[in-house]
């Protein structure tokens, strides 16, 4: 094994343990209507207002596949560099629950629509490839609400039948940091593709986390536990840390780990047993006789391939090669589609280097402070581009630009106008500057003498004075040149 600094190991006594993690991510397909019905899928609608007879499983109602959701799943598969299965089968997963109206969930068990693929993670010590086992389409269940009434449970079926993609990774992840990078990368790819909005607060992206531990160097996997339905990256990381340590403690204590399903308690920051392997449901999977096997042609897949936009990995490569960005800068700028779009709009008409610095530096800091996403940025790409051009052509100094930027953040104003209205234009007239400099030297005769007698450090003092007198507007380069001559 490598001696990477970022290697995540748990030390107990003289033993080092490696953590093995696999994720089953449930990603809600971005679509107007549900997987097998025409009901709307909008988030936050009044309870039970987006429910059709099919979603509520009325007698004699039949599912009809939504072609758009199939396309979205295939596109996602293409984005994961995965094998697209031209024939897939919908199965019924049978279990009883109040928010599962049919008494079964339509899912894909043996023959998923997408097979093996991969995701590349950019970790601090280099790239890491995470294998994708499969991606399949399935229906979401409704929502049971237990806390509105002391005795009754309320059921909201708005979510019932909404299309989900279950993306199953291979057990290739080794640390909470890698899990963080994996989820972010998956989300980024799906957002580029427009197949899942990745909104974890709204439940569009959730994951079951499989965790096991083994002694470092061991080739065998340990017994795994599955932590169900974790809905934020932070909680996933906390759950993994807790669970891995729990398992190491058991091993160190000479005990065995039971294969089981566990829940993560976000308040207590611990996982606890939900059901053991013996109590696991027998879902009695069998092919849904209401649906024929799903068959897609090569043409259908090729057409979808032609709709795939440039994805983050390819974009990053292009940014590095074409714009000479560092891998670090490129990573940040391609991390989500809105940021890369913004960046590419800014550099259409302005300097790449300055644009990169201003976006990653000033803009991100300002947005962060206001808790805004890039699409909500008060400064449009066009105006940021203008600001950069004002710096580049010497109309304003970098320092003044920061003042202008602050004003632009208050509302999307044209930087040109701000500069004009506030008289912030840089003073680059040598004659005007000479007059200013003469006055400063006059006012500081003693210091000028000291400078001439060899105290060269005082040069900075004179530059500062000139800038101060000019209200920051003096062109620093010219000031330097003239001062050198005059002193």
């Amino acid at each position, binding site marked *: 094994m490598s001696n990477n600094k970022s290697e995540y190991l748990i030390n107990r006594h003289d033993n080092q343990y490696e953590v093995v993690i696999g994720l089953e991510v449930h990603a809600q397909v971005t679509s107007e209507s549900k997987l097998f019905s025409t009901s709307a899928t909008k988030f936050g609608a009044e309870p039970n207002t987006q429910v059709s007879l099919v979603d509520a499983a*009325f007698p004699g109602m*039949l599912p009809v596949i939504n072609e758009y959701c199939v396309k979205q799943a295939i596109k996602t598969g293409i984005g994961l560099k995965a094998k697209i299965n031209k024939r897939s089968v919908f199965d019924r997963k*049978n279990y009883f629950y109040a928010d599962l109206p049919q008494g079964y969930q339509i899912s894909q068990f043996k023959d998923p629509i997408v097979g093996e693929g991969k995701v590349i993670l950019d970790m601090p010590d280099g790239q890491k490839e995470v294998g994708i086992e499969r991606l399949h389409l399935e229906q979401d269940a409704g929502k049971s609400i237990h806390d509105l009434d002391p005795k009754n449970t309320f059921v909201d079926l708005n979510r019932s039948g909404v299309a989900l993609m279950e993306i199953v990774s291979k057990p290739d992840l080794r640390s909470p940091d890698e899990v963080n990078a994996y989820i972010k990368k998956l989300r980024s790819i799906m957002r580029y593709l427009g197949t899942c909005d990745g909104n974890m607060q709204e439940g569009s992206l959730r994951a079951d986390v499989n965790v096991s531990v083994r002694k470092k160097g061991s080739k065998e996997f340990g017994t795994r536990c599955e932590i169900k339905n974790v809905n934020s990256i932070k909680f996933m990381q906390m759950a993994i840390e807790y669970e891995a340590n729990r398992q190491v403690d058991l091993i160190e204590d000479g005990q065995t780990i039971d294969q089981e399903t566990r829940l993560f308690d976000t308040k207590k920051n611990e996982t606890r047993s939900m059901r053991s392997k013996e109590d696991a449901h027998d879902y*009695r999977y*069998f092919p849904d*006789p*209401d649906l024929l096997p799903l068959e897609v042609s090569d043409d259908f897949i090729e057409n979808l391939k032609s709709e795939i936009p440039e994805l983050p990995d390819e974009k990053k490569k292009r940014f590095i090669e074409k714009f000479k960005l560092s891998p670090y800068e490129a990573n940040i700028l391609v991390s989500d589609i809105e940021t890369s779009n913004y960046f590419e709009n800014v550099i259409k008409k302005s300097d790449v280097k300055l644009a990169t610095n201003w976006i990653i530096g000033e803009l991100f800091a300002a947005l962060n402070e206001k808790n805004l996403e890039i699409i909500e940025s008060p400064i449009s790409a066009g105006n940021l581009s203008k600001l950069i051009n004002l710096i580049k052509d010497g109309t304003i100094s970098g320092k003044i630009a920061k003042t202008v930027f602050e004003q632009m953040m208050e509302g999307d104003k044209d930087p040109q106008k701000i500069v004009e209205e506030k008289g912030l234009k840089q003073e680059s007239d040598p004659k005007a500057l000479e007059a200013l400099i003469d006055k400063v030297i006059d006012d500081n005769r003693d210091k000028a003498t000291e400078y001439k007698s060899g105290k060269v450090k005082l040069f900075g003092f004179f530059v500062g004075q000139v800038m101060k007198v000019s209200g920051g507007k003096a062109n620093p380069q010219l000031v330097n040149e003239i001062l050198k001559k005059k002193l």
Partner: protein
Amino acid sequence: MSDITKQSLSELVENIKSKKLSSSEVTKAFVERSEKSKELNAYITEDYANALNKAKKFDEKPNLDLKLSGIPMAVKDLFCTKDLRTTAGSKILNNFVPTYESTVTQNIWNEGAILMGKLNCDEFAMGSSNETSFFGNVQNPIDKNLVPGGSSGGSSSAVAAQLTPITIGTDTGGSIRQPASFTGTVGLKPTYGSCSRYGIVAFASSLDQAGPMAQNVKDCALLQEVISSYDEKDSTSIDFKRNEYSKELTKDIKGKKIGIPKEYRVDGMPKEIEGLWKKGIEYAKDCGAEIIDISLPHTNYALPTYYIVAPAEASSNLARYDGVKYGFRAEGENLIDMYEKTRSEGFGAEVQRRIMIGTYVLSSGYYDAYYLKAQKVRKLIKNDFDDAYEKVDAILTPSTPSSAFKIGEKTNDPVSMYLNDIFTVPVNLAGLPGISIPAGHDAKGYPLGLQIIGKAFDEQNILNIAYAMEEKINFKNNITDWWIK
């Protein structure tokens, strides 16, 4: 006209179109006869007042260009009918009123027919005698103590007793053809995918198919023409060119090759059935058909295969009846308790038996041995038919291994009850069309039926053969109206 209810559908349609009869007169006649026939227990829900109103409205502004203009009709209570209670013969749907209409019934109303009520059937269509209905057994108009067959027992009884000029049933393993055979009527199970399953309470999705039940082949062809349609709301509906079955109906079947499968000579088959089959072969020859001996080698495995596949699908299809959303609910201490009480009280014994069989065969560890193997055998059974149809155009068999049995005779012996479907079940497993026509009587005077099985989508051919043979057979039902006081 006092003999309105004795007229065939085709005659009634003609008489309404030529204004010799009004829809009100016809509807009133069938309503009155239905009301006098309560003892048969053919109806679960009567909708007579509405039917008479609709007939009156029809007569005020008659549209005589439709295929079923002004014809009253009762339908099996497995079809969801908008605003009229639909029970599937079960307590669990005792109070269920759909807000939607099945595609098949909608097709019927679109052709001008009028709903009279909902007909009794075995609970969730699970049964061969109509004795599993929560609403009580149905009597066969042939004889007081005789079952009318099942699951479409209310339908067969109502057509035979002329409470409705025609009706529709559903057939998962023989539920149209067996009751037709038991009551001396005609019943067609169409090719799987011919009639939409949308809005039909599901029993076994890969086998269920709606079809017409009539007093003669011509009426049957006309109704098949109306109910068969491609429907995007049913993913298993098939878009094929549908004939105008009644218009294209012909008795000319000269040179048609009809296969006689040797495997249908089952052990212990009554001599009368054997004799009927032989007579059927003669009738077919008389019509100019060529008789060819064929083999369907996997016939023996059809019944066990069916009793794995059908319960498996049923166990899942019936999971939705859980007391949460609609239908019957028994109060419970908690969710699980509510489920258990609702389903124990809401489902009858036969339905519970099949749910348990289905749950068992799908269980992990048993799936491969039962369900998966059954699916493989199902394929072999279908291949048998494909091979046979290389040589023949249709296949002739008895419809059932016996005539109608007595009420209560087989209720405690499910296996002997299941054996009733031995000749009909292979047809469902292979997704083929099959028609039962009355072909004679046994020693007790009970009707016996012959089954003609066709190639997929070849309804026209088996209707033609049935039409030609019907004339030669010249069957007369002995119904004495014993139930009318």
